[in-house]
């Protein structure tokens, strides 16, 4: 691939003596949507931390926009990559608007704070995730699903070309899961953003995400379109379950269901 927006070259990493990621090569093109799949403890979240520069690899190089991520300061990374975390607790009361405004931090003027353009971006992000009616509510009183949407709005307001999400659907009911995936599809199609989603729901990944990379035991064991990559043997080996694969879905021709359960 020429000019990937994000690339890992022979990357290994771990916490202390424990190696979690071993020798991973991964290139992500501009405007791609890739899902990172794998069983628990495979190293998906570690991979994400490597790609955002929170963790330094013990071997290999992580590149953003062709430049080693080590050469970029946090502000530079923030202008390129927005990360949607899991909802967590807040020490103080904050409205939805106040939280989403944090997305403008990388663009904020040091002295004048939020300018009208920033406020407009914040309002647009809130509307885009459909939380317009909750704009003045205390975030701590929202449901988990709503809070996940708030965090997504933060990333949207950040206006970065790459959006990374760590298990965005794990707390959501079915309806909200679809809503999030629709949002991500919208960000991908309309904005042309690069999306990297760590996700454990095989079904959602297979039916919604155009490219999947499967991580197991710290290694990249598969990378490609779900229809080609997620075959029964892989799923059996990596996830240890016997899937029934049904033809369906917009992206791939498979819809994973049956004995797998809900992922």
């Amino acid at each position, binding site marked *: 691939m020429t000019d990937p927006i994000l690339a890992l070259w022979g990357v290994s990493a771990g916490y202390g003596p424990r190696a979690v990621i071993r020798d991973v090569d991964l290139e992500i093109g501009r405007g791609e949507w890739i899902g990172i799949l794998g069983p628990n403890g495979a190293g998906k979240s570690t991979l994400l931390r490597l790609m955002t520069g*929170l963790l330094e690899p013990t071997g290999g190089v992580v590149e953003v926009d062709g430049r080693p991520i080590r050469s970029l300061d946090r502000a530079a990374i923030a202008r390129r990559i927005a990360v949607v975390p899991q909802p967590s607790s807040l020490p103080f009361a904050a409205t939805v608007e106040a939280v989403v405004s944090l997305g403008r931090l990388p663009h904020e003027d040091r002295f004048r*704070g939020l300018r009208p353009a920033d406020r407009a971006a914040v309002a647009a992000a809130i509307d885009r995730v459909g939380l317009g009616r909750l704009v003045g*509510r205390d975030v701590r009183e929202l449901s988990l699903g709503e809070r996940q949407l708030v965090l997504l709005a933060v990333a949207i307001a950040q206006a970065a070309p790459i959006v990374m999400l760590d298990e965005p659907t794990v707390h959501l009911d079915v309806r909200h899961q679809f809503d999030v995936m*629709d949002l991500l599809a*919208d960000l991908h199609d309309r904005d042309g953003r690069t999306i990297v989603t760590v996700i454990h729901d095989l079904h959602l990944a297979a039916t919604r995400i155009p490219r999947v990379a499967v991580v197991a035991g710290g290694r990249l064991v598969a990378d490609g379109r779900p229809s080609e990559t997620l075959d029964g043997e892989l799923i059996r080996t990596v996830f240890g379950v016997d899937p029934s694969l049904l033809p369906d879905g917009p992206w791939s021709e498979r819809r994973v269901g049956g004995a797998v359960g809900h992922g």
Partner: protein
Amino acid sequence: MAVGQDLLARGRTAVRWPFHRRPLPLAVIGAAGLCVAILAAVGLGSVTVAPGDTLAILAHRLFLLDLPRTWSPTAETIVWDLRLPRALEAAVVGLGLAVAGTTFQGLLRNPLADPYVLGTASGAALGAAIAVLLPVRVEILGFRLLQLLAFVGAIAAVTLVYRLSRVTGGSPLTSLLLTGYALGSLLAAALAMAMYLSGAALRQIFSYLLGSFDNASWSELGGALPIILIASSLILLRSRSLNGLLLGEDAAAHLGVDVRRERAILLGLASLITAAAVSVSGLIGFVGLVIPHLVRMLVGPNARVVLPLAAIGGAILMIVADLVARTLGEIPVGVITAVIGAPFFLVLLRRAQRGYEL
């Protein structure tokens, strides 16, 4: 595209921050209140000075106006050498503690944090106790040994807490808090020992612990004011980092904050302010804890707005508390701030439990 509709219409009230959109009027009100407080503190005391004389003395000394001398030199000494530096010192210390409290609460993501949470109080108290026990009388730039050692003690304690917390594993914030608690307890024990050995000097240590502005002077102000004002301004310039920490350290990093560096800088600045404050006024509590919450209730959590308003609020509270303390006679300022602060904090907690903002 219709996404994420809130299907259930829950009857929750929106967060009500009365001055969220209009912090400027609040700042103006606050500034006016501060002026009134300072004038009251300068005009009232155990000796009666006519208000006209007070204003005339101020006009004469501050603006160098040549007015007919209707006041006595004694009144001028009282107003200019005793009351004015005292009022200003109370303002500066209150300002500093409120700013430091805001910073620590944001930095540690803990609404119960106050300026003393990382051992500064215990370090300062121990430094002061040692100074009282040493048979040495030193004055550097108008600062007595007690103030110098209190300052050094506060800084040393925080530095030690910071270093130790880096060594222990786990989340840096939890590590900081727990190490601060542990070291604080250790220093308190050392302080108890020092108090036990202090003999006749016990009263001096005790009066330091309770905090007071009795010894305020222009020279003391000249030492504390620059440190507190400059460090507070530097913190204000970094309010972005403080805001970024709202969602957590990782989220802050993702929003472009160099967390490690900012944490060290903010910690250092806030500790410097606290050390300067406690070295001139002793340990006065509740201001650093309650004022940030009160301000957040009015304007929301944005540090850029909270910090200056908390500074004004802290200054006003401290001036008023000192005025009340010396009017009621010999009650330590710390007792007044506790009497005001504790019930207020309980009210805050109750409201938070009933679903309002904290």
